[in-house]
């Protein structure tokens, strides 16, 4: 994945630019629903987490959940957006079996959160600023199962009424890689905030991707003038449910559009479905008049008015967010922007690193985490929170490596031992005699033994000083890898009359 996804597509008639906007539906992390006291817990028996409000029984009235409002405000603050102290709930009208009300309570003209932004950290260290449209707070719909019966669909309203944040970006992304980075960053922000669990498998975070292509230079003109006429017609790709699928769907869709335009056709604005098995997008049968939602203010709800002092209190309670944490890691730990970006990508990873780096060389800790710990976790298919070796134990290993108690090689062996057997690294080093030998007389003894056993090599090294490496290897073997490499080099140099450096 070191290869950069291109921002342009080479077509028959010249270069085409990809332009991407994202629409993410993020379920608010709360115990109860937005307008009813039913549970939001995932995976319950069908229709068991449904109140008469969620089932839209006649006469039932919505009462808003204060915590859901707080979560939306928190998310808005995390997106560096203005909070609108007065917002209005509107009805978005459409008919579908899993929407019993016949409308979704959402926001339209006066949403709770204004425009914001998200910064993307790209692999090459570049930072991309993506503008965000106002965030809307609304209700999620229920779910329909279509594979239970040949002639019928089965409707479960457990999800109906769960609070949902509609988080929409401006079309400020230019490659599939940036689109995936956006989703990753947004997910990190809501997870840091604790406002959404970001679980894409369970559908608590769902992404639609808007893709269009335009001739090279069109995007710049769009950014200068703000006029969409410089961009191509967009297609909306529904429910792309992983970072990888976002990337693949964008790549496929952009190519499809270029081929159509260059073949003399035009792009129809439509909703398409990404099929991850075939890796293609397909037109969804376009519903006639599907986009006439006839929004109007919900007469069952008064305007939502927030007190500035309450918003200020929420602001004061915000945790450190990825961008701030990244800046602090770079400043306090002296690690690279890239390393810091990777570490803060997941809160749990950042926490693990901070504990690991306490009182030791922070750069060494970052390398150790990236190369050794994450490598092993990847191999075993584990997440950072499931690491068999705790941050504290890793800290102990790095500490022993730092003060030359153990060599770098033995540190890795030690990590493997603790990984599979558990135990305290410091005790294991004591018990198994893994301490590095820095005692010169012991090293001299080993060097002398190697020299005595290999007179031919001793002759050879006079002409080929590079052979010193072979001697070091032999001495290490003799000492079970415990000799301090610097000490071995020094003794070898003296015994074999090697030149000062080399």
């Amino acid at each position, binding site marked *: 994945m070191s290869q950069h996804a291109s921002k342009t597509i080479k077509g028959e008639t010249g270069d085409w630019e990809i332009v991407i906007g994202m629409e993410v539906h993020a379920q608010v992390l*709360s*115990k*109860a629903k937005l307008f*009813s*006291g*039913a*549970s939001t817990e995932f995976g319950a*028996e*069908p*229709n*068991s*987490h*449904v*109140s*008469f*409000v969620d*089932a839209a029984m006649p006469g039932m009235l919505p*009462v*808003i*959940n*204060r*915590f*859901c*409002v707080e979560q939306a405000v928190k998310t808005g603050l995390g997106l560096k957006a203005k909070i609108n102290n007065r917002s*209005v709930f509107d009805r978005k*009208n459409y*008919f*579908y*079996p899993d929407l019993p009300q016949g409308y979704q309570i959402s926001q339209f003209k006066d949403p709770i959160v204004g425009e914001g932004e998200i910064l993307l950290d790209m692999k090459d260290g570049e930072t991309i600023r993506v503008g965000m449209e106002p965030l809307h707070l609304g209700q999620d719909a229920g779910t*329909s*199962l*279509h594979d*239970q*019966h*040949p*002639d*019928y*669909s*089965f*409707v*479960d*309203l457990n999800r109906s009424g769960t609070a949902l944040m509609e988080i929409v970006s401006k079309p400020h992304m230019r490659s599939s890689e940036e689109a995936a980075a956006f989703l990753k960053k947004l997910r990190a922000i809501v997870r840091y905030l604790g406002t959404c669990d970001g679980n894409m498998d369970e559908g608590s975070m769902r992404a639609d991707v808007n893709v269009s292509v335009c001739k090279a230079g069109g995007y710049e003109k769009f950014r200068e003038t703000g006029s969409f006429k410089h961009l191509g017609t967009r297609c909306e790709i529904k429910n792309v449910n992983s970072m990888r699928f976002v990337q693949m769907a964008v790549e496929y869709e952009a190519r499809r559009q270029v081929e159509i335009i260059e073949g003399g056709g035009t792009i129809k604005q439509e909703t398409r*479905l990404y099929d991850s098995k075939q890796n293609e997008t397909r037109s*969804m*049968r376009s519903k006639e*008049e599907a986009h*006439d939602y*006839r929004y109007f*203010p919900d*007469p069952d*709800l*008064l*305007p*939502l*008015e927030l007190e500035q002092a309450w918003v200020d209190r929420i602001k004061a309670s915000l945790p450190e967010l990825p961008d701030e944490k990244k800046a602090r890691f770079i400043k306090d730990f002296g690690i690279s922007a890239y390393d810091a970006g990777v570490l803060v990508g997941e809160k749990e990873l950042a926490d693990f690193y901070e504990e690991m780096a306490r009182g030791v060389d922070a750069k060494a800790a970052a390398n150790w985490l990236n190369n050794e710990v994450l490598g092993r976790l990847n191999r075993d298919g584990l997440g950072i929170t499931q690491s068999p070796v705790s941050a504290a134990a890793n800290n102990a290993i790095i500490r022993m490596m730092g003060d030359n108690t153990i060599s770098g090689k033995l540190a890795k062996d030690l990590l493997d031992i603790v990984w599979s057997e558990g135990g305290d690294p410091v005790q294991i080093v004591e018990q198994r005699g893994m301490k590095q030998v820095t005692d010169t007389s012991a090293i001299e003894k080993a060097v002398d033994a190697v020299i005595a056993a290999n007179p031919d090599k001793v002759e050879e090294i006079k002409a080929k000083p590079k052979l010193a490496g072979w001697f070091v290897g032999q001495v290490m073997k003799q000492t079970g890898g415990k000799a301090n490499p610097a000490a071995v080099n020094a003794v070898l140099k003296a015994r074999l009359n090697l030149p000062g450096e080399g």
Partner: protein
Amino acid sequence: MSVDKDTVRRIAKLARIALEEERVAPMERELNGILAWVEQLQEVNVEGVAPMTSVVAQKLKMRDDVVTDGNIADAVTANAPMREDNFFVVPKVVE
């Protein structure tokens, strides 16, 4: 503002209301009557009055985030024409 017959048919369709063809013209007249009446309201001077969607001088009531409802699947699905294992069963709607 007024509506024509096509708009009336479209509104009926969006609202999932079956409107027989002979009802379209009377409905057009009725709706235009309502719209004309609403239009009269435009004559009122509302300068300096903030737009409002409710005339109740009250704040929106809020509840705490506590689970107080649910586990009534039987009651929720009681009136469904068809149900199975507490699911609502509806004609297939897959795209």
